[in-house]
């Protein structure tokens, strides 16, 4: 099979929550393509449909209409594509980073990263080694055996990033990864994401409502009322 041209392809994606009078169109006719290694930002006010877009791409939320293709595999085409194994796609192709770091409280930093590897059939020892290596590279070498409750916000978010990256996914989806952090830590997390996109050749889609955070992104989309309005190129791609 040819290497897919795009890591993410979204065509005319519509998501309607609920039915009848109470139906909410969270996303209308959205289209977007992201190449491997690209760092893309989605900017928009609260309630504009950013999370909806991300969760539809992340195979957490079933699209109402439209098409989603991840790394060449059609996952949704007016609802989930027949026979698609969503969990498998999620664990093999996708990495998630969220505002609330979503670390598992009863696992240490290292074990949190190991989980993502072990569900992808890494042996225990491989997982252990790779998790440590990743955390060290994110300056968390001294935190390997700490529980999330003992980590600062920035440290926890970096552990979450390590977990998302552990399996070298084609696509990394980040929903407001800096919202819970101060400006300094937020900026550091963004710099880290940029660096990782380059190194791993992953497509990174970052949702944020803070435009100060998106310096140096390849492309920025603005979303309002469920529509993707403008696409602004920061640099050539």
């Amino acid at each position, binding site marked *: 099979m040819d290497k897919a041209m795009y890591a993410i392809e979204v065509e005319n994606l519509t998501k309607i929550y609920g039915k009848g009078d109470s139906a909410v169109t969270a996303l209308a006719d959205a289209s977007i393509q992201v190449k491997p290694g690209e760092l893309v930002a989605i900017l928009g006010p609260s309630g504009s449909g950013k999370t909806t877009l991300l969760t539809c791409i992340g195979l957490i939320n079933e699209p109402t209409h439209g098409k989603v293709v991840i790394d060449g595999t059609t996952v949704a085409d007016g609802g989930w594509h027949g026979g698609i194994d969503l969990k*498998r796609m*999620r664990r*093999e192709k*996708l990495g*998630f980073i969220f505002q609330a770091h979503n670390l598992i409280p009863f696992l240490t930093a290292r074990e949190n990263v190991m*989980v993502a590897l072990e569900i992808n059939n890494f042996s225990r020892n491989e997982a252990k080694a790779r998790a440590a290596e990743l955390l060290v590279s994110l300056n968390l070498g001294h935190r390997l055996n700490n529980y999330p409750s003992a980590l600062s916000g920035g440290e926890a978010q970096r552990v979450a990033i390590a977990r998302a990256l552990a399996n070298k996914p084609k696509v990394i989806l980040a929903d407001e990864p800096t919202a819970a952090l101060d400006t300094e830590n937020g900026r550091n997390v963004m710099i880290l994401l940029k660096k990782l996109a380059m190194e791993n050749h992953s497509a990174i889609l970052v949702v944020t409502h803070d435009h100060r955070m998106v310096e140096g992104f390849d492309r920025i989309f603005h979303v309002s009322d469920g529509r993707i309005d403008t696409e602004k190129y920061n640099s050539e791609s």
Partner: protein
Amino acid sequence: MNLALRDIRYHRGRFILTSIGLGLLLGVVISMGGIYRGLFADALAVLDSTKADIWVVQQNTNGPFAESSRIPEDIKYRIKLVPGVAEASPLSFQTIQIEKMGKPFRFFLIGYDTNGFGGPPEIVAGRNIRQKHYEMVVAKAMKMDIGEKIHLGLHDYTVVGITGKVVSSGGDPAAYVSLADAQDIQFKKDNDAIRNDRERIGTNLAAIQSISPSQAKYLKQNIAGITESTHTVNTIVARLAPGANLHEVQELISRWNHFRPISVEEQTKILTKGMIEKARMQLGLFRIILLVISAVIIALIIYTSTLDKIRVIATLKLIGSQNRVIIGMILQQSLLMGFIAYFIGYGLILLTYENFPRRIVLEAFDLQVLFVIVIAICTISSFVGIRKALKVEPAEALGG
């Protein structure tokens, strides 16, 4: 990496407390089973240790344990002569409650013919009864020392030996004395009563005009002799000769009309079906109730611990964990808790059962069945949590 163990490690205090609580509950279930078995063992203790084939008692009674039975001691000679009977020996039973160091002290006094059988099944310390009178062998549970004296009836009795675990069907420890002593204790009147009776007999005879004073004196002696006689026993136990037919022997004794020959099998039925049936049912009911309570508690614990982990489960789903990872986490935790609780309960009873006021008999079969039930309860209970977990949407991990 085992998520169940990691979670337990992180919440170990809670897990240990829960397991101990559950363990105590299972300990009670185990002890109830032990008491249930102990009831049997106690009820049959004297029956078993006597090793007789036939218990001859007063006719129309279920004696000597379930009902009172009184028969003349000398019937033993007739029974010995019945074809097929090898040995016959008289026994007397009575429950005695006296005060010892200000506390009620209950025991079951067995009188036996020191030349016959039915005496202490074993001597663990001291010696058996050798003198005709005033010696006593007591069960260990009476907590008496050799040489200790106890006042019964009109005399002091000295403990000369200790026997093992013999108890009455009510669970009171047994003590053995010679038959003559037992009869004295049970039937002998004190001097005041004897004097009163003799006087009454004398006055009654004097009132009869037609007998001479010399006849009256003779009659008075005779009548007093009969009323003061203590040659009564509760049962005569018999052993069959090799090859003798139980039913034939029973048939022969029944023909005398005044006695009922009860086989060991019938006696066992009288003791277990009749005497301890209610207690047995009560205990069975309690065990079932406690098991249901345990099941509900386990299910609740598993369910709430699943609810506590909704976000963890959602996160695991979000990163694409297979269902088996999530099911395994819940099921293993549940099984581990049941497993640990079972052994806490078991260990607890093992350490303490000797000190229970009633006999606890732990049977491997009962313990195995309970173990299987506990594991089944844990498995079924975890389905409640697993069902909940499988319904969790990965999107639930997103809520800020």
